[in-house]
């Protein structure tokens, strides 16, 4: 359950995802989430965490590609596709 409302997470930019994730963590820690919604909110937090991790991995890969290119023949800053 509770996965159905998280399809939008895959399209969120990093800033929006981390902001919402921080808000969820704060609410869970403060006990401000109703019992009935608690698991759904936790699961959205998990989806946001995965989205942030994915975006971070992509950013790291881009940085890595620029570094490697700089040692050889510079070819610009073409983004690297990362799964």
């Amino acid at each position, binding site marked *: 359950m509770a996965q159905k409302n998280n399809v939008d997470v895959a399209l969120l930019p990093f800033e929006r995802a981390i902001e919402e994730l921080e808000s969820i963590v704060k609410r*869970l820690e403060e006990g*401000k989430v109703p*019992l009935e*919604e608690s*698991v759904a909110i*936790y699961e959205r937090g998990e989806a946001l965490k995965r989205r942030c991790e994915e975006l971070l991995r992509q950013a790291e890969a881009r940085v890595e590609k620029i570094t490697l290119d700089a040692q050889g023949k510079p070819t610009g800053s073409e983004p690297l596709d990362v799964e």
Partner: protein
Amino acid sequence: MSTLLISHSACLQHLTPAGHPERPDRLRAIEQALEAEKFQALGRAQAPIADIETIALCHPMEYIEEVREASPREGLVHLDADTSMSPGTFEAALRAAGGAVLAVDEVLGKKTDNAFVATRPPGHHAETARPMGFCLFDNAAIAARYAQKRHGIARAAVVDFDVHHGNGPQEIFWTDKSVMYCSTHQMPLFPGTGAVIESGEHNTVVNAPLRPGDGSEAFHAAFATRILPRLRDFRPELVIISAGFDAHTRDPLANINLTEADFVWVTQQLMDVADQCAGGRVVSLLEGGYDLRALGNSVAGHVQALMRG
């Protein structure tokens, strides 16, 4: 060996909004599960209405009156986002506390070896003066304090395997070294309390949080390495179980993956502690559990273990 089952049809009259997980059908599922042939040997008793003075062992009179006055003549009133009252709720809550008190009387009066109380609303989120998380009065805490006051029990333990942390008993017993409160629960999840570092003023609160996705192995380890040794050291004279079955893998309100066999196992472990320290005295009180099939089967396993079946 005798086990007493305590319930009351008035607990079906605590109505909650349509679609709410804490619903009367939970008790019907339990009743149906305990109709099986193997439960014919159960003693059965009606949950009485608790005296207000007994509830006041854990809650201020003003709070009890506030709850009574909030009781609607018709329809539902909401006390918070989760917790509501229907016209039948106040009596149900008094009988949920009364069932816990009767169980203590019967077990400590040696009329039965142990007891399971199948009532609602549940109790372990109710704090001293705050209804919360489907709960109005903290039945387990009331049972512990009543056992001490009425029967002279020096040390009682409340052991809570509901998937949500029992913020109520933790708050009520935070400064009380005569009651140990132990809990396994999912973190993060409602109500947000229950970290290992929360240990009470006298180190008598024992929290063993589980991670989402954990199953039997982590649950057994939490009891074997954290809770059971502390319980044995504490040497309770009565073991009260806050028996929530929402850590079951089918439960919609959490992400822990226990099965009926895990509830049987933990029941047996707690009975072993009670045999060693408390003359076998165990009082078990229903808390959560929101998948009806999982709840019925899990309660059946729990009660069969109490019957040493």
